[in-house]
């Protein structure tokens, strides 16, 4: 099978791989590069567990072909904490007990991260909209919504 090269930055570090053409970014990240933080919950684009940030935009890595990401800057949940220090969003998820099984969590955090990048002081409706492509089956969503609002408050307090 013909291999094609892909090269992008993942959480700030350069990655270059030869992959099968047609490989999804989700598979490339998980199976080739070893970043298993994006989860494969449906491979249909209906659950959001595979969400990653590509050049600042939230994307579904299960529906994105890796070779279309050449030159892109990709962020995943595994790259969010720096130097072992949790990102405020990660802290907020802990504080509000927003994780149960944890399978949807990385995707939720990605969706929330993009929201806060663009809308540092979101309303509840903004948060609901931002999370609307991500499915959680355990929590009933409320603790996750609270986590994002809490992280936003923490950010604005830090900024002030």
């Amino acid at each position, binding site marked *: 099978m013909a291999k094609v090269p892909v090269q992008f930055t993942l959480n700030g570090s350069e990655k270059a791989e030869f992959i*099968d053409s*047609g490989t999804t970014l989700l598979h490339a990240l*998980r*199976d080739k590069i*070893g*970043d*298993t*933080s*994006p*989860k*494969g*919950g*449906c*491979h*249909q684009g*209906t*659950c959001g*567990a595979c969400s990653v940030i590509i050049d600042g935009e939230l994307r579904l890595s299960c529906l994105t072909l890796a070779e279309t990401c050449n030159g892109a800057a990709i962020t*995943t*949940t*595994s790259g*969010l*904490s720096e130097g072992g220090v*949790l990102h405020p*969003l*990660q802290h907020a*998820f*802990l504080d509000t*007990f927003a*994780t*149960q*099984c*944890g*399978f*949807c*969590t*990385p995707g939720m*955090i990605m969706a929330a991260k993009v929201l806060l990048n663009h809308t540092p002081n979101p309303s509840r409706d903004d948060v609901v909209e931002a999370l609307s492509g991500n*499915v*959680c*089956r*355990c929590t009933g969503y409320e603790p996750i919504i609270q986590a994002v609002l809490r992280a936003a408050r923490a950010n604005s307090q830090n900024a002030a």
Partner: protein
Amino acid sequence: MELRKSYFADVRKDDLHEIGQPRPRSDSPGHVTGKTAFFADRNFPGMLHLKMVRSPHHHARIRSIDTSEAEKHPGVVKIITAKDVPHNVYTILILIQIGPEDETVLADGKVRWKGEAVVAVLAETERAAQEAAAKVKVDYEVLPAVFDMEEALKPGAPLVNEFHGQNYYLYDSGECRKVRFGDVEAGFAAADHVLEQSYQSSPIEHAPTETTGCVVAPEGNDRFTCYTNTQAMFFTLDNASIILQMPGNKLHFVGGTVGGGFGGKVDVIVEPIAILGAKLTGRPVSFIYSREEEMQISSPRAAEKVVIRDGVMKDGRIVARKVTGYTDAGAYSRHSPYGAQKGAGHYPGPYTIPNVWIDTYCVYTNRTPSSAMRGFGVTIGDFALEVQMDKLARLIGMDPLEFRFINAYRDGDMKAHRQPTEGAALIECMQEASRAANWPVAEKFMAMSSYVKGA
């Protein structure tokens, strides 16, 4: 959430160090950093991907299976059919002596539901396995199917499962699990009103965000490690051991970190065939349900039909309750015979009723086998019971909440299945709900207690 410590304070110790404390969860940091290792996060060099060829028919005889084209497909390593499975007919609850074995691991001669596993294809890539699966030719003779429980129970209905010989599970008590308490007919005769109503549910999927699956790796010493999201490690290991006719000491199961279960990951479906694949090829094997498989192939919560006949007095006392419950097991038993009889033990609900008659049936139809789910054997019964309670209250012109107080069980009350009530707290829950929802009830009900002196 609020803890109402005023209730039951006399029987509770609130001075513990760790119990009752809102400690942070030790697993959450792994979740928020994406570091938690779920089974599918394990990747092995040379891992094969298993895809299942499934029945397109609800009920059909298999005339022939031709895998020759699929075997030649590039990337295909192994194709498994029924003849390759050492003990192909099994049932999960055989471990607790609930038989008969009634389900094929891979269909042998017949399929009994649309989506039933027929042929397993193992290939180097998912894509190659999908392509080869499309080349497996199965010649079916389509048979009449039955989907409606009432139809299935009628004489002359298509027989769903030959291992049972009839379209219901045969308990030691006969065609249903029975509970008999008091004289229900006398109760109806004495009642001021009799109300019979029928309730129905549809199958419900657990829909965990992580689909059912496993990754199996040969250890190189004739043992196989199975990374799985089963909800029951030894249940799965021991059943796999039976199906594969492989000593249990050859199997090593690693799990315990599951992306949601809700009862949906107790069916021992993916592990045996994946281990067999690893054994036959000597290579790691991954078998992970697609989302479509999770939604339509994995067992749902059974559809149930519940018929309730109640005798009630004008003063609010329920004097007789007869419940007939039907659990739609689909084509195979899985856990359904257990769920149906668990239902028999749950009726007539948290109420003290002197005359009770319960029959619960486990019925076979040509649909996806159902199994356990959160509230197994109880959830749909509670729906039926509590809507019935509302109807009864309105029938006699009584407040629905007060009506429940009148009938609520208390410590020491004998239940229909002949266990005395212990640790009751229904009354206190209703009292608190009355306050929280601003739904006032008479003072005498607010003064009630589940405690009964001497009970």
